[in-house]
């Protein structure tokens, strides 16, 4: 499947900004099932300094600095991405989760050092005994790893209510857990925290999701949004993604931009301004399937 994705972010500041520094992670990644065919990033006003590089997790990022006085900032990306259908995983034939957790206890084999990084607590995701107990309901004795992960995804979807007003990016996971409400980012964090509480490696994935118009209606432009889900490392198979917000195992309709330990590693645009005061942000995302 080919997609053309347009992502616009517009900041309007209450007071003039004299200098701003930003980091943007907006360029879709190349993966075994996805290729980024073209990508452009436009920034207004034109930054005095702009540098692209690869971050610790292999994501493409763009650092830019605006040094002229400005009261708004617009960032527009345009990407063309090819997504291959994923070969469906044989969840039932994966190894029992306990044996996978055992692989990630010290000392670990050098072959799994890369996924090993995702076993540990990260700034926004902390393992706890409470989450471990919740996760164990999906991971009974000898449950195959991906059967457990699929079941956990289903339960997160059922037990937690999607509610954009319940949380912000700053809401700690403990509060999401208590309120039983949140958005895709919170659900991804919850899934990761549950898996890590069992000693399993799990990572945060940010990207886009193709949305389908209701039956008989035409597709609306620009109403899509950034999306987030989680991935779990399965020995022999590699990373396998799950989307608790939509209770699916991503196939051809999820486009991966970046991954990291949690949202903090991959936030699409982060900036520090001198001046600016309060600000408003408007984001529009359009995921257009190309025939």
């Amino acid at each position, binding site marked *: 499947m080919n997609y053309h994705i347009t992502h616009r*972010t517009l*900041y309007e500041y209450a007071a003039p900004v*004299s*200098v701003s*520094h*930003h*980091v943007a992670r907006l360029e879709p990644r190349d993966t075994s099932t996805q290729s980024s065919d073209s990508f452009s990033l436009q920034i207004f006003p034109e930054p*005095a*300094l702009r*540098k692209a590089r690869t*971050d*610790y*997790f292999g994501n493409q990022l763009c*650092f830019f*600095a605006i*040094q002229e006085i400005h009261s708004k900032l617009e960032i527009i990306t345009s990407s063309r991405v090819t997504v291959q259908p994923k070969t469906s995983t044989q969840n039932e034939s994966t190894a029992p989760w306990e044996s996978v957790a055992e692989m990630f*206890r*010290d*000392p*670990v084999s*050098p072959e799994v*050092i890369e996924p*090993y*990084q995702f*076993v*540990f*607590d990260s*700034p926004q995701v902390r*393992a706890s*005994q409470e989450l*471990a107990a919740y996760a164990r309901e999906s991971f009974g004795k000898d449950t195959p790893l991906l059967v457990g992960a699929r079941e956990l995804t289903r339960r997160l979807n059922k037990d937690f209510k999607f509610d*954009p007003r319940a949380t*912000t*990016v*700053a809401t700690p996971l403990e509060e999401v857990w208590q309120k039983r409400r949140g*958005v*895709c*980012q919170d659900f991804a964090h919850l899934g990761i925290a549950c898996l890590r509480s069992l000693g399993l490696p799990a990572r945060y994935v*940010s990207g886009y999701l193709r949305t389908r118009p209701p039956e008989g209606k035409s597709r609306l432009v620009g109403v899509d*949004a*950034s*999306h*987030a889900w989680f991935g779990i490392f399965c020995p022999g198979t590699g990373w396998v993604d799950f989307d608790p917000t939509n209770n699916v195992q991503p196939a051809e309709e999820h486009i991966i931009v970046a991954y990291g330990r949690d*949202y*903090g*590693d991959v*936030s*699409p*645009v*982060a*900036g*520090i*301004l*001198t*001046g*600016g*005061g309060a*600000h408003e*942000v408007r*984001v529009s995302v359009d995921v257009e399937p190309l025939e």
Partner: protein
Amino acid sequence: MSEAGENKNRRDQPPMIQSQLQSTPEDTSFAKKATPEKLLSGYKGSAGAFDELLAKDGEIFPHYAKLLGELEEFGSAELSRRADACQRFVHEHGITYNVYGDPRGMERPWQLDPIPFVIAPEEWQKLETGLIQRATLLNKILADCYGAQDLIRSRWLSPALVFGQPDFLRPCHGIKMPGDIFLHFYAADLARSPDGRWWVVSDRTQIPTGAGYALANRLVTSRILPEPFRDNHVHRLAGFFLATQNALAQLAPRQADKARVVMLTPGPHNETYFEQAYVARYLGYMLVEGQDLTVRDNHVWLKTLSGLERVDVILRRVDDDFCDPLELRNDSILGVPGLVEAVRAGTVVIANALGSGLVQSPAFMSFLPGLCRHLLNEPLKLPSVATWWCGQKAAREHVLKHLDKLIVKPAFRTQQGLADAGFEDLKQRIEFDPDLFVAQERIELSTAPSWEKNSLAAQPVSLRVFLVTDGQGGYSVMPGGLTRVLPDSGGKFISMQRGGGSSKDTWIPSATPVDEVTLLHSTNQNVELRRTGNNLPSRLADNFFWLGRYSERADATSRLLRSALLRFNPERTGGAKPLLAPLLQTLETQGQLPGISAKPELWSNAEAFEAELLAAIFDPTRHGSLRQTAEQLQRLAMLVRDRTSNDMWRVLSQIDDRLATPPSSKRVMLAGDAVGVLNQTLLGLAAFHGLARENMTRAQAWRFLDMGLRLERTVYLCTLLEATLLSPDAENPSLLEAILEVVDSSITFRSRYNLLPTIPAVFDLVLLDDKNPRSVLFQIKQLVKHFEKLPKERGDAASPGKTVLENCQSRLERADARELASPSAKWSDSALAETVRQTLRVLPQLSNAIAASYFAHSAISRTGRGEVQ
């Protein structure tokens, strides 16, 4: 001389001698005069610990003999006197450390024991070798973790120790450091176990603090014990700081002679702020906060009054994850946005490298012996205290089995403490997430002689030592260190932050006289002559301005209160009221006696009235009291500590001390006592202003201080003059005399007019006479002069502040007191009153204009953390 050499070859343990005073030829002189019995009569080390002074058989180790002999010669009384001098020096130099979460009296005086800790030179040499090896090793580990990560892949290092640690800063991975130096400064805490061996108890690689306190301890101790200091040929500390200067200059991306090194501080509330200011001044570096720096074009710049100036090297006292809110902790307000990218680009070097806190985790200790053999091909020379990291299976099992005998600690910095955890709770937590815990063996600390109740007592000590890179892959060690003393034993380790313990100077004696080292460069070079110092950061200009304002506020408040107290007579309070009214109203308007005019009942109750005045002086909880103003002065003085002289600091701290300890308790304090305190306060302020006027160069700092003073004086003067004209008794000569007294112009008045004061004569002198340094016009003219000398604003011919001032000046210059005072129905409606009011109106505008032009430090804000849905 030969002793030391022999000992080096002969023994591993500190050598012992047969009788106390025969180790070197010089010592014989003491043997004749005194025996050490008296000072040592109560000296007794604890049974299970090594004693630094006495060997097992009760004999004195030779490296202590000379010091002890001289102490004996001084005798208890003299030592007692010197111990008092020690405390006084500490206080006068303002040597302090801060305790978090203690807003009142947050600043604690530093505790210094007058008796130095002495280490035998041959033993010190061995420690040095071991410490240099350890620093080299830790640096190599850092270079690998932030680079190739071979140690992890080849399993010399458990990956969990790196990946699982919050101090592993992923954005800093891959950053190249000049000379592959990540660890520019290193400190270690050492302790000596009962068998006499030294152990490393903790490594400090993130921000190795304490070298400044070691220097301060040396300064004081060498002053109170000059004879033993000289006779022991103690190694000097200056060489270490010289090595620091050289190392940092070499790191600079630009040529060394152009390089600007700054020290980045989290600010005055940081626990070791004193040390930061002290070391920055000693090394000649500017002490800056994050908001003083900005990143433009991927370079770091210092914001000064006259523009941006490039920074090459940052000596960092801010935790690494707080250094850049963009790429590191985004909730940090201490750092500089864009700093990591500038470091990555190589335009600035930060010491220690961002991320160097990684190897500070005690969990690394158990890997060091293996890593040392692997990386350096030699055994680890200086052992760490026995450490088990629970992330490893065998270690975990050992720890769980011996929980009662070990000290369990968090493995990583950002974890919460474990102080109250019970064994069962601890067990469960270790089993759930073993990586997060280490356990260490308890060390019974060795004891050393310390001053206690007029004699010497054995107290437990540990030693913090300091190393700095030589820029070539090696390190130099400070010959000495910071010895810390724990008041009572118990195997627990010492924490300054918890407010425990005292400290000591640390002496490494030498058999021969030592080299004198100076931090000043040799004079052979051609020196470019300079008439200006470094440019003033705008934040400091702001602080100086307010220092000036508060010093004058304290002065004016003291004068008004003093005159009020002197005129206050309980016998006839009602009669005194009209004469006091303008004074009290001025104090009310300016916030020292809020709402006093609305409390007429006070006039008939002499006791309550007096209590009100005394509260305005002494009450620390009362907004605007003199005591609070003095505290503000102290606070501001601390903010500009590295830019003012010790004398200025001392004068201000004496003022604060005096107000904090009134001559008698409030209940029985007499007005006369309070007047005495006010007199002393005014003398102190006069000393402060005198020091400012006579000792500060006429550069920007002085200018802003004086502007603050002039502005504040104008405010109080005009408020008082307006209040006078509003009074129905304005013409009363007694009232006018009080006004002259408050503004310190009585003598001048009497020398000019041989008559009772009248309004035109008084106002001519106090409002319009530009020869009178207490007049309004004098202040305005000074302010205009300052404005002319300030850096010009960009493309702004006449700044708004200057225009306002010049209008005010010409209005006052044109004025004639007799005309203005032409008879009118009421003085409050006169042209004179209008002139005063016009001036008063101008002042807030002026203050705002100064702030807008020179003190603009815009707040930073963040975006882009809420778009995902």
